[in-house]
């Protein structure tokens, strides 16, 4: 399966506790007990994810409605890379 076909989603949003800190965001991930410190656009991506599995392309559309994103092709690659990192950490899931 290529990355473009992967569908991304997240479990119950209650799994994470988010707190602003100095322009960064602290995340306490309840199932793992791990604290993450993340920068934009990670909190925005997490907010865009839901129970419903969606391809990166559709997630990008909903993100660009709220945020000013540059260069369509590059933005999609960046978003896909972020999503894969989040999956590796267990903060997002893919299928």
């Amino acid at each position, binding site marked *: 399966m290529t990355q473009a076909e992967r569908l991304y989603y997240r479990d119950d949003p209650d799994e994470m*506790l988010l707190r602003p800190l100095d*322009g960064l965001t602290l995340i*306490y991930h309840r199932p793992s*007990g791990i*604290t993450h*410190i993340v920068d934009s656009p990670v909190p925005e991506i997490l907010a865009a994810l839901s129970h419903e599995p969606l391809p990166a392309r559709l997630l990008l559309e909903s993100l660009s409605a709220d945020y000013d994103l540059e260069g369509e092709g590059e933005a999609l690659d960046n978003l896909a890379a972020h999503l894969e990192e989040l999956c590796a950490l267990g903060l997002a899931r893919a299928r």
Partner: protein
Amino acid sequence: MRHHLLLAIGPARFRIGSAWRGPIDALRRLYAAYPQSSQDDAVADFTVRLEPAGIGRRWWRPSVRIAGDHHLPDAVPMALRHGLLAAEMGMNLQMALGWRRHLLIHASSVEKDGKVLVMAGESGSGKSTLAALLGERGWRLMGDEFALLDFATGAIHPFPRLVSLKNQAIDVMRREVDDAARFGPLMAATPKGDIAHLIPAAEAVSRMSEAAPPALLLFPRYGHAPDIRAVGEGEAFMHLTQASTNYVACGEAAFTALHRFVTTVPSIALDFSSGDEADRMIGRLWREYAG
């Protein structure tokens, strides 16, 4: 075990057992002002054992293994003449690995006007000596090793164990405290260098169950030209997670308490080259931030 003692320091009660009389006698004397009882009368939070490091090692070149509820499997045994240090290390280890009722920050703390100054840093940063010094100069010593952060209220609870003075700090405090009876025996050439314990001032012990809210967090650094620098919330958070032995173990409560701490308490890095200089700098900072 043959010799034993039950001892309360701050909110924690330790049952200390020993194969030898010496370390228990030393604890009884140095902790005379603290609540002491027996294992028949009170229930301990932690058990510490000072046991022979091998068969026959009770008499022959006696060597102490530090064990207990929580222990490090590869801890090197210590000479019996350093038995008091072994007992202290055993108690610290129980707190570091086993305490769950507060967030444990590897920091010293002192209180004045009902507000707490917390000093965090590596060993050698001078945080312990500074706390001992301030504890003789109008502040109440709350602890030289662990600051206990209350999950619910955000207050700091005291853990005023004996102050552990290392190397030059021993002379610094001998000049400051004009009472030989407040010092424990000099233990030369321990794995940590020369060590002597100092009994905290009477008020530190009599008020050891009184918590107070934190007003300032310092990251002191001894051996540098005097300087101060503001520390960001993110940096303070990172430092304190590193300086806490139970942050991960305490989970969400620790996350919430530490976030509140760094977003409500100002953080300053403080470089200094002598105790008197640090005392003056802290006085100015205190008026500014806690006045």
